[in-house]
Each structure stands twice: as C-alpha cells, then as structure tokens.
C-alpha cells in the first residue's frame, strides 16, 4: 500500500555530470521496498507546485535509508537536482511490482541508461544465492556505473557499441539461466531478440501521471490488451510483451 509523504532530503551527491544521487531516511517505507519498485517523486519547490510527480526507481533501500540515482533530463528531474539537504522531497510509493527472485541460477542483468538503478540493487540482492553478471550500456563515459561489463556508444569508456551486442555470446559462455533487464525500449527489444526462450523479466518505462493505476496513461502492450506500467508493472515477463507494437 503506497504512502504519500513529505520528507527532508537527507543528502544529495552529483555523480558524473548529469546524474545525482539523493536519499531520505524512511525506515517504514524502506522495509517495503523490493528491487524493481519505484516512487513518484517531486521536489517540494514553488516552481513544482503544479507539476507532475516523476517515477524514479529505488536504487537502494537499506538501514532505513532509501536512495535514488537520477539523470537530469527535463524540468522535473532538474528541480530534484536543485533541492538542497533539509528541503522537502515529496514521495508517493513504493509503487509497482518487483523482480521475481531466484536461487542457484546464473543470472544476467542488462541495463541501459537510467535502467541501471533497479538492476544494481537487484544484483546485490541476488548475489548471495546466484551467480550474477551485470552488463550496462550508455552513450558515453558519463552514463557508465560500476558493472561487470560496460559499453558506450562513443567508446569513451568500456567497450564501444551497444550493450546488447555480445549478449548471445555471454548467454552461451556463462551458461545463463535467467535474464533481467531495464532500459530504453529499443535496447529491451534488441535484447529480447537475443534471449530466445530463456526466462526474461523486463522492467519497462512509460510516461506517468497518477502512478497508482488510475489514469491508464502508462499503458504498454502486454498480454491481450494493455497493462499499466505503474500498477501491473513495471516488471513484466518478456514473453508476454507484444514487442512488435513497441
């Protein structure tokens, strides 16, 4: 059951140039978080009064603290970057479902861009019970974060190219049993093409308004009709997603 709260920002930290990491202390909320879940966030600044909340994945929830890793792309995320410690952060959540957890498997985690935070956390959660490989891609060095294999479009860090380019190889050589993914749609689509019949859980993105399942704004083609990323997702079994419509 999601909660709406206004909490003082604990800390804010610039990472690379375009990213920031922010956190709040919220033991009860942190308890409820699982990898894949997200919050609708908004900076408690006058400029944001009439603006929408923005969906942001939980990057880490431990010891009562919840933190988020955010890329500044537009007005909403820019305002989050302006928020100073002690100023109010508005949170609605935790929202959505979470990744299906397994044991004793070889798990491949594939993230692109701002798909990184939920998989980074998933990795830490899976690792005690599984062998986990996290590959991550972005457009330049700025977009790279700690992972087992990194890719950049411009080759400025890690391997040059797409995060999906070596997936077939990795699946074979590492004997992968299960795939988890989060990132931009074209990446997920290309990934699903490589994954074949392996179990694959993909976390999808969508523009959101309510975050609660009320407005049907975040619909994606899953199963027979549309499913709501905010309420039915964000994690879907990749086999149920109608990829050709994305």
């Amino acid at each position, binding site marked *: *059951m*999601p*909660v*709406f709260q206004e909490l003082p920002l604990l800390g804010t930290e610039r990472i690379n140039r375009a990213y920031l990491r922010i956190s709040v202390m919220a033991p009860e909320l942190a308890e409820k978080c699982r990898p894949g879940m997200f919050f609708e966030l*908004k900076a408690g600044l006058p400029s*944001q*009064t*009439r*603006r*929408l*909340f923005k969906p942001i994945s939980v990057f880490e929830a431990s010891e009562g603290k919840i933190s988020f890793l955010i890329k500044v792309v537009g007005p*909403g995320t820019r305002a989050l970057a302006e928020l100073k410690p002690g100023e109010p952060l508005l949170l*609605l959540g935790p929202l959505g479902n979470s990744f299906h957890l397994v044991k004793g498997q070889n798990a491949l985690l594939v993230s692109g861009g701002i798909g990184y935070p939920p998989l980074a956390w998933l990795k830490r959660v899976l690792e005690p019970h599984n062998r986990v490989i996290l590959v991550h891609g972005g457009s330049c060095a700025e977009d790279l974060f700690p992972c087992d294999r990194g890719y950049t479009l411009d080759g400025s860090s890690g391997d040059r190219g797409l995060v999906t380019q070596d997936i077939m190889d990795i699946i074979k050589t590492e004997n992968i049993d299960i795939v988890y993914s989060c990132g931009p749609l074209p990446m997920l689509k290309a990934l699903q093409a490589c994954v074949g019949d392996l179990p694959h859980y993909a976390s999808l993105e*969508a*523009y*959101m*308004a*309510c975050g*609660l*399942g*009320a*407005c*049907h*704004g*975040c*619909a*994606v*083609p899953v199963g027979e*009709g*549309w499913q709501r990323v905010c*309420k039915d997702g964000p994690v879907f079994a990749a086999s149920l997603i109608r990829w050709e*419509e994305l």
Partner: protein
Amino acid sequence: MNRLATALGRLRLKSPVTVASGTFDTGYFELFDQSALGAYTTKTITLAPKAGNPPPRLYETEAGLLNSIGLQNPGLKAWLNEDLPLLRDLLQIPLIVSFSGSSEDEFLRVLDGLELQEGIAGYEVNVSCPNVAKEGIAFGADPDVVFSLASSLAALTRRELIFKLSPNVTDIAAIAQAAEAGGASSLALINTLYGSAIDWKTGRFRISSFVCGYSGSGIKPVALALCHKVALAVRIPILALGGIHSWQDALEFFWAGASAIALGTAFYSDPLAAVKLRQGLEDFLRENDLSLRDIIGKAR
C-alpha cells in the same frame, strides 16, 4: 451546519468536491478518506470494451497535461460484473457512472444496462471526449443531437442526469441549453481542450495521436469563462472542472455559477488536493460566515 452542502439536481452532496471522470480511482482512498468527496465519478464506460490508444499517451506541458487514453475501458458487461460490485462495497458517497457511445442507440443500451443495477446515484453522459474518432465530440458539437439524446435518456431514468460538455465548440451555451431542454438535470464542463506537443529536435509528436486532450492549470481561464457563459444561459446546476487545483481556484468557479467542482489533473501534482481544497474552502467560508450558496453565481 454544513457550509459546504450543495446539490447537483436531484443529488445532495455533503462536499462540493468531486473527481473528474477518467482521472481517479479508488486507489487514492489508500491516501485519503473518501468523505472529502461529495461524489465518485467513474472513468467513462462504453457498451463494448475499448482497448484505448497506443503509447505514449501522456505528456506534461509547461502548464498542463496532454493525454490520449482513448476511452480505454472493459466495456459495460465486464464493468457491471467486476467493477460495480467492488465500488458498491467500498463507496459511502454517491456513485456517478460516466458513459459514452458512438450512436444514440449505444448510449441508450448502456443506460438500460445501468438502470437495472442498484447503487448508482447518477450518470455523467460524456458527449465530449476529443480522443476517439467516432464517439463523443460528434455528439457534443450539435445542439439537435444533444437535445435528442438528452430526451431519450431522460425518459428512461429518474437518476441524476449530468451532461458533460466539450469546450471545443463555437457556442457551448447553445449545447448546454439543448441538453437542458432535453431533460439533463445538470451539466459538467469542461472536458479537455484540443492540444498537441511536438519534440522540437526530431519533429515527433509527443503522443501517439496528433491531437489530444489538454487539461490542467493552463485551461483554467477557459473553463471559468465557459462556466460563466453557461451559468447565464441555463437554470440547471453546473459541475465545473478544468484546471482546478486549489480552494481559491474552486471559489472562482463558485462565484461564476458552479454548484460543485471536480478535480482531475490536480491529483497528479498533489494526491491530497481534494482534502486540502475541501478544508481550505471550509475555513474560508467559516471565517467569512458564508455558505456555499451565498456565493454561487454571485460574481460581478
């Protein structure tokens, strides 16, 4: 004394704050108590299920929200069997069912189905959704069609019959008068304005359908002007909406002639908007020793 008591035709409301069709569902009651609201309005339903429009369906503009949901709904039958029982169990406030159709016959068949059910206090007849090719706006733009539809529906029900009007017409007052003459017992206005947004870098429309519905604070001045125009043209009560966020916004609409208001997009910038609005209104009225009816339609 409840300074906030109001009425929409046959419907007495303990709070003048209601919710805009399609923007709200009972999930919000996990965040606040339903008693803040005077009534609960459903998303628009249609006779057959509707899949809705492909994504992306939403985009936030400088002063509002664009949407193109495309009236996604499970259709009358599934709604009656799955949604209505849950709503009946949960709601302690009047239930208003919004519905639409692509022909007068379709509207009538939906009403027939709903009339057989208990626990429904009123209907909001959506003749104004701009997203769907055949439904909605075709009806909402022609006074003769609206009159005929209102007459047919009014003959079949004793429940509150609200007609929800589109702002995208030359003369909303004429449509309002046609609905009133046909037998609508109140009016809801406005539905969304036409709106669009394009990615200036690539030329791609931000939403899958080129022209979508525009709501939120940017449309408030339009909604207020049309509310006042209609208030001068009809005697039946008005449920006003369009960009209302705060209790001060709501007061403007009461002065202009609204008997109740609805919040839609406001929930997406403040999930507690309805609670705060109701409280702010009550405080204002108490401090000035006024009741809602002292100010409804008294703008000058």
